[in-house]
């Protein structure tokens, strides 16, 4: 009985002097930026936890007079973004905050409570007619036609009566190759539309091209440019190991598929004079993909500059690319061991343990023998 009282007293003092803690958690999904659309309504669900004290939940809604918190049930509530059609909010970005704070009482001279807040970003778009435009022109194979994609996104609340695009195609010398006018369409506020005109590029040679688009919308204009490639069945050499040492070397070759289809069985051979020095393993390349082929090459020559040929093989075809190889004299370097010392290695402690055990066994056997044990 006496013992129990002592334990109870101990528990009492521990509870009395153990530092108390405050905690508060706000749990919910991430919203990302919220676009203000008059006449719409959205609710985001939240829960709070980790506290035993009453809490205050409040929202700093800035100029939005109808953003509110729902009734709290089982520590859960909704944050309601109510955007009435008749409410005018100036264009801009607004940071709002949902906060929960403890509402506890304390008689201590210096006391604390914790609060957690979550920021919300509400974007109020333009009340004028405004658009973002996006132009996509895919790279194609020689002999094909080009299908463009011009997207016009309204980023203002008013409807746009007439949207039209003018697209021009230019070669690498900036010469005009053709012009396309899209049809004229209306565009409701905050919505988007796409034009997908086709350009006859079947007679154009392989190479880089540029597309320029001008979009007119109710008397205003915006422009956007992009580029595309007309490709042929070809493998382009982009880079190779040009500086080598006498003897064995890592040799790498970077190539690009210049075609809008896969290239299979891609590999390369290196020749200097009539001597074949290496053949890389084969690989496949996706449309327009770059790839690196690696192999080990033995250079049987001394230092100097040598002219060679890289034979590139792809899809049963081959092309030869002249290259220059520079064989340089090896630079003597000091050998630096990266090995860990034995004492730092994993084996050190187990070895020590085993040695210790063997020592103990040996000692026991000696003691046993010396003192006559059997």
């Amino acid at each position: 009985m006496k013992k129990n009282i002592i334990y109870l007293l101990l528990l009492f003092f521990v509870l009395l002097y153990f530092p108390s803690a405050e905690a508060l958690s706000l749990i919910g999904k991430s919203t990302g930026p919220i676009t203000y659309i008059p006449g719409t309504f959205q609710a985001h669900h939240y829960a709070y936890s980790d506290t035993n004290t009453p809490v205050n939940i409040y929202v700093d809604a800035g100029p939005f007079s109808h953003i509110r918190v729902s009734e709290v049930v089982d520590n859960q509530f909704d944050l309601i973004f109510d955007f009435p059609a008749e409410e005018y909010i100036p264009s801009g970005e607004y940071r709002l905050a949902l906060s929960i704070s403890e509402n506890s009482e304390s008689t201590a001279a210096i006391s604390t409570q914790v609060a957690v807040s979550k920021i919300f970003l509400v974007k109020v778009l333009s009340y004028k007619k405004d658009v973002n435009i996006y132009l996509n022109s895919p790279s194609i194979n020689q002999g094909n036609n080009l299908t463009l994609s011009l997207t016009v996104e309204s980023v203002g609340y008013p409807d746009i009566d007439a949207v039209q695009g003018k697209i021009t195609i230019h070669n690498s010398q900036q010469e005009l190759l053709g012009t396309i006018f899209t049809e004229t369409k209306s565009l409701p506020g905050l919505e988007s539309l796409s034009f997908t005109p086709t350009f006859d590029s079947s007679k154009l040679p392989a190479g880089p091209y540029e597309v320029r688009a001008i979009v007119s919308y109710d008397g205003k204009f915006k422009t956007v440019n992009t580029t595309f490639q007309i490709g042929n069945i070809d493998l382009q050499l982009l880079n190779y190991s040009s500086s080598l040492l006498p003897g064995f070397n890592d040799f790498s070759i970077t190539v690009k598929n210049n075609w809008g289809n896969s290239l299979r069985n891609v590999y390369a051979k290196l020749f200097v004079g009539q001597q074949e020095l290496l053949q890389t393993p084969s690989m496949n390349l996706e449309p327009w993909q770059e790839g690196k082929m690696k192999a080990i090459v033995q250079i049987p020559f001394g230092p100097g500059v040598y002219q060679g040929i890289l034979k590139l093989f792809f899809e049963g075809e081959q092309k030869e690319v002249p290259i220059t190889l520079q064989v340089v004299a090896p630079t003597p370097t000091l050998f630096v061991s990266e090995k860990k010392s034995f004492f730092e290695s994993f084996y050190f402690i187990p070895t020590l343990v085993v040695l210790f055990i063997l020592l103990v066994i040996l000692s026991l056997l000696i003691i046993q023998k010396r003192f006559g044990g059997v």
Partner: protein
Amino acid sequence: MIKIPDSFLVLLLLFAVGVTALTTIVGLSQHFGLQAGGLWLSGAVSSTSLGEVNLTINTVTAFTNQRTTIDFGSGYVNSSCNFCGMDSNGQNISYYTNGSNISSTGYAATCCVTFNTSQSLGFLLENTGNVNLSVGYTCGANCTHASFIGGDLAPGMGGLQIKVTPNAANAISPGSWQQAGETGATDTAGSCQGGSSDDSPGFSHSIGWNITNSSSYTNQTDYGRFGNNTYAVLSPAGHWLCGNATLYWLDSADTKDAAVVDINVTVPATAPVTSVRNSVRLTFNGTSSFST
């Protein structure tokens, strides 16, 4: 006569063999592990198949304070003193009328009579959620020295001050120490390390807790140490401590998610005697971004 049982020797030998075997297996695993996927089962993908899992990740904005009150109690300033200085970290100062200022720890503060000077813990703040936070405080009730304690302070005295120290020993402030009790693992690195880690002049938005009321992050005299382990006068209007409304620098990683807030008060001998208990009510706020 000493008789050592054979079974004991066999047991020792078996243990030695076991250690050797384990060492060999681990050694082989380390040697071949990277190439062959290891001798152990691991999380490495060895084959793939199609499947569909629906999962909703919630963000948790969670903030913890491991100490709720600091109470220096009631008392008076010794007649041989001008001021009694008390700190929640126990580092008290006696300001004697003869001009000597003597620092002491705990009850040895002679100028502070009957006050509870044996404090040793500050407010331990911790980001216990899964998103980064900015941290600030607001203050309610008697948030100035005049309203909390009163009396005349010497020039340069703060009176009622606050400081923040990352809760990792020597991580940022030489000599800083760790306060036990973090909810997660104890910090091993300085907290509130957002922005650039470049210490060269001109790099703004750098390291540290900002408690000095410095409004400019480009102030090079304060550069990189905006209040780490430095006292500032408690602001009745509140202040950001780490990051701000758009920068969320208190990491959610367990290794760097906590800090200790200490309070320092100075009681002048001229402080009015009052029967009304004055109080300071601090609210520490952890704020997360809309994008997390």
